[in-house]
């Protein structure tokens, strides 16, 4: 089967400073890859470049996503094609309710794909179903996007949005950081529920806990802008007991 994501010799950075020095990564449909690494390794740069953050620059290399040139696509086109980023620091949008925000997102995607917009009834049914899935109560739908949310609520909201948009490819950028056990389970359940032979994900994390709940197919270690090791869960185990210093490419 064709690869869902192919990254070839990717060099990228921000404000003229190169952070990724030649990343190669291939993800097949159905695979979940973990990317682990110390602070400053370039993990968030990788997720930002994949999602198309405007302030990051790709200096060389290529990324193919679902058979298309990802780097030629705008952030919203990437989203419509099925790419989802769970933000490390979710953004507040005052005055905009979760309901209105998700309605705009769901229908924008449907429109781009040539599908009819959901009726109010269909949308509310979907909203309720996914809210129940992440354990959010009714009033959550009326709250302003991320405004006054606790750290845990923000991450839960990211997983809720992921469930709503049912992406082909999800990137979880340190979604597990600072979460308690219950919230961590919501994140893991969210990812596991999306598992299918077509769908893939990258889990970016410092820690092994989330990976224990998800069990990725492949684990990569990113250090100083390069992938220095690739293996299975044993790699995550080694990092937990011996630290990132123990792994040298």
């Amino acid at each position, binding site marked *: 089967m064709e690869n869902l994501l192919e990254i070839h010799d990717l060099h990228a950075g921000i404000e003229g400073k190169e952070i990724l020095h030649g990343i190669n990564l291939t993800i097949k449909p159905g695979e979940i890859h973990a990317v682990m690494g110390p602070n400053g390794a370039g993990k968030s740069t990788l997720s930002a470049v994949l999602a*198309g953050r*405007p302030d*990051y620059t790709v200096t060389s290399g290529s990324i193919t996503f679902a058979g298309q040139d990802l780097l030629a696509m705008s952030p919203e086109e990437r989203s419509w094609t099925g790419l*989802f980023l769970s933000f490390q620091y*979710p953004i507040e*949008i005052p005055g*905009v309710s979760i309901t*209105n925000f998700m309605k*705009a997102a769901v229908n*924008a995607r449907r429109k781009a794909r040539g599908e009819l917009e959901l009726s109010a009834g269909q949308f509310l049914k979907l909203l309720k179903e996914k809210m129940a899935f992440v354990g959010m109560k009714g009033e959550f739908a009326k709250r302003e996007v991320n405004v006054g949310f606790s750290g845990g609520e923000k991450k839960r909201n990211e997983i809720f949005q992921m469930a709503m948009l049912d992406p082909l490819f999800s990137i979880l950028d340190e979604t597990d950081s600072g979460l308690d056990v219950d919230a961590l389970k919501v994140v893991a359940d969210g990812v596991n529920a999306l598992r299918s032979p077509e769908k893939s994900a990258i889990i970016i994390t410092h820690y092994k806990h989330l990976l224990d709940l998800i069990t990725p197919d492949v684990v990569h270690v990113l250090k100083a802008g390069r992938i220095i090791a690739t293996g299975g869960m044993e790699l995550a185990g080694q990092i937990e007991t011996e630290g990132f210093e123990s792994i040298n490419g």
Partner: protein
Amino acid sequence: MAEEKDILAAAAEKEYSEGFVTDIEQEFVPKGLNEDIIRTISAKKEEPEWLLEFRLDAFRKWKTMTPPKWGHLSRLPEIDFQDIIYYAAPKRDEDRPKEIDPALQETFDKLGIPIKEREVLAGVKSKVAVDAVFDSVSVSTTFRKTLSEMGIIFCSFSEAVREHPDLVRKYLASVVPVADNFYAALNSAVFSDGSFCYIPKGVKCPMDLSSYFRINASGTGQFERTLIIADEGASVSYMEGCTAPMRDENQLHAAVVEIIVEKDADVRYSTVQNWYPGDSQGRGGILNLVTKRGLCRGEGSHLSWTQVETGSAITWKYPSTVLMGDNSSSEFYSVALTGNYQQADTGTKMIHIGRNTRSRIVSKGISAGHSENSYRGLVRMNPGAQHARNYSQCDSLLIGDKCGAHTFPVIRNANPTAIVEHEATTSRISEDQLFYCNQRGISPEDAVGLIVGGYAREVLSRLPMEFAVEAQKLLSVNLEGSIG
């Protein structure tokens, strides 16, 4: 990848779907302004002598006055008042004087304004009575009869002069004196038509009342006059809307609105101002220079202003309230959006005279393109305003880096028991917010609309339902082209 300043680049073309011209035979008075022109207008309207005298007195006062220069409005041109046609009206079909001209019917259909009662009764929308004004005359007022059964008078100003001269004479210029300011004096001299409504004692108006103002003819100005009186214990919700054709010339709109609120009466006045704003280079557009003021005369009276200002090349407008009655209260909720080269200097005055009077000001300015957006407000606590309170909140949102937002709040407190609070914020639509929306599949344009709608929500939620939907659409449409 694009930088923020590219994404939020200066505004390009705005869609203005109301910019068409109606091809209809119209009659005009000659261009220019003098006593003969005023006499001609008054004669055309078959006005009583006292009203002609009122106009001439206003004209004489106006001649001694000069236009105010204090607004933050660098693009307000020197207006040649002799180069304006002060009266334009569609010609009546002599054979069928009662019928609405098909061209006018089509115009208001296009604008979505129901000028026949059966259109409203057949529709799914909530019931609203409409007074439709086309250039200098009212062409249709609906539900007059239904309303009159409850003693409510809702008609064009000209009809009110003919049918209820005592009421008009009693209240005209009682809130905005003739020489209040340069443009109010001009309006008092040349006003043509507008709406009149009177809600008698204890009557709650069963439907929303509205006026729709349409400028059509080239080279003209519109000078409407609106008078609303809510007698003791009465209540009414009143809305006004307006549009004009797209032209390279500026057109003057100088209105006066006066509202009188008696004891325990309640008036809600909502505006969605969508005059032609000019093109992307700042050519043309309406010069909107208006005076709106309400008098909370009775004890416990209440007046609420809600305005959504999206149109006009220039807006100079300060809907204000004089809180005379003890325990009277007033609110001013405003969203002013400027794009391209638009300039708005708008706000309110809350004059506290009575005891325990309350006022609340919530102003949301949104500037894009090369526009300038200013809030100007006065909160005055007179010596007798025991325990009066005001709360003001002025927020500014900037889109792009070539626009300006300014606030000019003035507080004069002459009563030590009165409390005045003022809060102000300035923010930008951040690149992070845009990217977050984009990542979820929401396009940059829709994202700006969504973020701005959220920012303005507190004000939009105060509008009657259908008006709120309309206003939300206008905010989005008027921001089209303000990004990439």
